[in-house]
């Protein structure tokens, strides 16, 4: 099977509102997979679009499509969130060790089977990120490689490993 890039609204003269409307689902899906938390993903999506609005003046369609640019911003927002969350957890480590943290139930999509949903939740955000970008958003390997700052080969290898792990998780859950 070939993962060919999906035709998208490539902004040559589009406004930010049109770009936001066209790529909201993509950015949201990407962040859901990256965070594994739908509520958090919604907050981060809104934050990403706020940041994108402030940076819209610097957007250059010749360098990247609006979708890639928005995903790049969403990734930066998510990484910033993870960092601040990590700092917060470290700061509150003692308390967090006594009080069990309530982890939200990961739900990645309405139509996913429970086994697949659970298997996705067991994957690392890095694995889910590559699946989201390459499978859900159907970005080509070179675009994803540029977005993640890795080579195209590394991108494909990472996707392959992520799918393998996902498959293993599903079969493990089914056997269990």
């Amino acid at each position: 099977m070939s993962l060919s890039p999906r035709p998208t609204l490539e902004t040559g003269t589009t406004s930010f509102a049109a770009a936001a409307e066209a790529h909201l689902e993509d950015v949201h899906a990407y962040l859901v997979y990256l965070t594994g938390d739908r509520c958090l993903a919604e907050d981060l999506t809104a934050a990403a679009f706020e940041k994108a609005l402030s940076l819209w003046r610097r957007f250059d369609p010749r360098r990247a499509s609006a979708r890639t640019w928005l995903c790049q911003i969403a990734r930066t927002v998510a990484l910033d969130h993870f960092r601040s969350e990590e700092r917060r957890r470290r700061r509150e480590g003692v308390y967090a060790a006594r009080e069990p943290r309530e982890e939200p139930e990961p739900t990645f999509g309405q139509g996913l089977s429970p086994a697949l949903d659970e298997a996705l939740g067991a994957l690392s955000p890095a694995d889910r990120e590559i699946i989201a970008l390459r499978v859900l958003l159907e970005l080509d390997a070179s675009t994803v490689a540029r977005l993640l700052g890795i080579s195209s080969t590394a991108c494909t290898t990472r996707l392959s490993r992520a799918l393998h792990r996902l498959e293993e998780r599903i079969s493990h859950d089914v056997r269990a």
Partner: protein
Amino acid sequence: MTSGPEGKVEERFDELLAQLRAGRPAPSPALRERVAAIATTESSPEPVRRRTFPWRRTLALGTVSAVAAGVVALAVVSVDPGSGEQPAGEREAITLPEANLDRSAPRSSGQESVTRAQKAPSAGRAVAPSALPPTQKRLQDYRADLRVQVRRPGQVASATSRAMRITRSLGGYIVSASYARARQGDSTLVVRVPVDKVQDAILRFSQLGTLLSQRIEIQDLQGGVNRQSDRIAALRTSIASVEADLRDPELTAEERAPLETRLSTLRRQLATRLEARAATVRRGRLSRVSLTLTTREAAAAPVPPAPPGQFEETLRDAVSVLGKVVGWLLYAVIVASPFLALVLGAALLERWRRRRGDLALLERAS
């Protein structure tokens, strides 16, 4: 599973990928409203279409242009400026130029040097004998170099003998004579003749055969002689003064000794000066003539290269400046390259560290 950069995924994942796509999460209506509100309520300025400068293309084009300009400049500069202006065959038809007068010595020094050179521009063309007359009122160092061609090798010896006789008849003498008896032997004669008869000597020497070239140098000696005379007069005055002091009967032995030492020094200096002045005067009274008798024809006189034009001169200056600039740039690059490599390495290391950090953060964030 085979996967490559093109994104080929094994077919057994088709069903899984289809499930993932089918279960793609959709944003809630609340999020849609939120984002719509962000996009519409706030004024979203149009992206500034910055005119990006095509650095790579410009750099490549500039490099090629610079190399081409350098090659053209070098080609233009390396072309002999004299070539092509006049064919060699036409040069022989040039009429003999007037004698050059080169006044190089400064007049303020009291020494004047005049050089007059006259050469045959091509083989077999004779030079009309014409000697600068020496000045009778001032002492001059008069030197003449003559090159005379005789027809046959056997005539060299007889012409040399006649030149010697001419020298003696004019009251001069032979300084040196060199004669090589060979098939094409040359004879070189250096003679001294009184200055007032040097014109006659040059005329008669040139009649020994065909005059091929003559070079006359005149250097004024009067200024030097005058200075020597002034110094001699001053020394004589000093000597007279010291002698007068020594005639004082009241002088003690201690006082007399330094005066006598000074007197002897002054007398030695006077003798040296007198001798030098006499030599200068002798040099001024006798001219020096170098006569070369040969059977060979004169070699074609080299045509001096044409002076460079303004454009060519500007081009040469530009190439020179360009060379210096390139040299300095190379120097700067060589000096700065270790630091640039360090900075580049640090930047790459920081980039690699940041990406590793991001990946590790995503791995931990599960």
